[in-house]
């Protein structure tokens, strides 16, 4: 057990700088969005902003456009902005493929030549991924809370804490889902770059599938395959209700990915 904890702390120590800096950046981004929302609110230019949106986008967004083009909508954008989602999912993939990288560099030889069970390598990575996900989302929510308290106009309703929490939970599960997929792919790969690139391509394809399905009916029939289908922040913005079924789907994919990673990793050869 001592060895397992040492490996866990070692891994957390290695990623802490990256996670803290990323969390700070994302926290600052939340504050920045609040400044933007306040500015637009003060100038009353939400309608003008809506007018800038191309018609096909308006059609895709439908009634959720109104929710998005509001003070709350812009504040919540920090939880589904492409840059935010992209960087968080990339980080998940990076963290989930740490075992592959350790095999590639030969570090795994030193770890597993000690009395340490193979499954602990995967368990360790899941714990690291979970802790990092929670820490990042906590820093983002802290940014939102601090920004709202310091900068938001007092005369308008702020996004409900439940809404922010729901967005964060849903986004967190999306990260875990892609982490699980990356870990499963990484467990059969010899190179981290290959595992990362494959998962990244898959994530991009699934994102595009979900995106295209909004405008193109034929894609709709297979859009359920995309994990992004189970993170619909605009829906959350509109009705403020977190759908448990969607969370369960994301959690199930994550668990399946982790399960496959355990199986593949326990059977594979450790060779670099």
């Amino acid at each position, binding site marked *: 057990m*001592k*060895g397992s904890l*040492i*490996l866990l702390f*070692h891994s957390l120590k*290695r990623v802490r700088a990256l996670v803290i800096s990323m969390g700070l950046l994302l926290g600052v981004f939340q504050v920045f969005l609040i400044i933007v929302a306040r500015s637009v609110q003060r100038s009353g230019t939400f309608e003008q902003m809506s007018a800038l949106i191309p018609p096909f986008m308006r059609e895709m967004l439908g009634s959720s456009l109104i929710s998005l083009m509001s003070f709350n909508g812009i504040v919540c954008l920090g939880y589904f902005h492409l840059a935010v989602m992209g960087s968080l999912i990339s980080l998940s993939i990076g963290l989930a493929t740490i075992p592959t990288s*350790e095999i590639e*560099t*030969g*570090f*795994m*030889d*030193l*770890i*597993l*030549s*000690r*009395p*340490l*069970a193979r499954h602990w390598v995967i368990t360790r990575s899941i714990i690291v991924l979970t802790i990092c996900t929670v820490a990042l989302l906590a820093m983002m929510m802290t940014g939102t809370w601090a920004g709202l308290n310091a900068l938001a106009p007092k005369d308008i309703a702020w996004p409900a804490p439940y809404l922010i929490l729901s967005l964060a939970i849903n986004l967190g599960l999306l990260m875990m889902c892609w982490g699980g997929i990356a870990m499963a792919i990484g467990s059969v790969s010899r190179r981290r770059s290959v595992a990362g690139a494959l998962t990244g391509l898959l994530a991009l394809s699934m994102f595009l599938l979900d995106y295209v399905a909004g405008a193109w009916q034929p894609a709709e029939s297979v859009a359920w395959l995309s994990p992004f289908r189970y993170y619909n922040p605009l829906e959350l913005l509109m009705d403020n209700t977190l759908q448990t079924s969607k969370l369960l789907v994301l959690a199930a994919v994550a668990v399946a990915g982790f399960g496959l990673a355990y199986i593949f990793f326990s*059977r594979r*050869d*450790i*060779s*670099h």
Partner: protein
Amino acid sequence: MKSSIAAQSPISIYGITKRYGSLTAVSNLHLEVNEGEILGFLGLNGAGKTTSIRILLDLLRPTGGRALIFGHDCQAEGLQARSLTGYLPGEMGIYSDLTGREVLDFLAGLNRQTVNKQYRQELQERLELPDRDLRRKWREYSTGMKRKLGLIQAFQADPPLLILDEPTEGLDPLMQESFYGILADVQRRGRTVFMSSHVLSEVERVCDRIALLRKGELVLLSTVEDIRKLAARRVRVFFTEDVSLKPVLTPGHEVVEITPRVWSLRVEGLLGPLMNMLAALPVKDLEIEEPRLEDVLIKYYREGPQ
């Protein structure tokens, strides 16, 4: 090659085979390493040495057969097996921003045995890797320093079995001497060493027995002494005057080079018949070289068992 296997031998290998598709890296390897011995594991590149070592550590899964460390199956009871083992890999894959001390502490923490700091300090002193160097980052280490750190991490928990993959690769001659000294000490304390090496002189010097792999198959398993007996001696005969006579040699004796005043011969077995023949000649001096292990081993490398 299969020998009787004692239940608690440090290493017992029962017919392990490892295939990668159509390539057989190790084929039906049977081997037993006795307690307290240093066994040299030899072979050319790609002979299957590292593959066999990695199977012992459960890094690779064999296609067939099984291996035991002190009676513990390397796969089914890998944790118990590895808790009794210290391992030096051929190449150390370490995060470049870790200091030497961090590497040693981290790897010591993964062991079940507690590392005796005094023993680690002693190893540091013998391998000349002072605390000052341990404060430096891995990326600043030279090849030799990396090897020294690798040796310290393998020995620091003083495990009953040491598995070393090319231990002196990158060490300067002085450090090689220190390493041999450490090996002798651990052997005196009853530890067992299983080491792969390319350096035949090193194997000849430190190992009790040799196992030689060729294309994944064990082609020789013997004590160093017995292998030496298989080797031919080199004999040079110097004459006081020119000798035009051609030497008449018995089987096992072979001419290497002949000049009027010097004969160079290879002699297997007894020297008596050669001495009888030389008795009638004007011999000035006789130079007999000790049999060289590498003469035999190179033959095995090239041809396998005949």
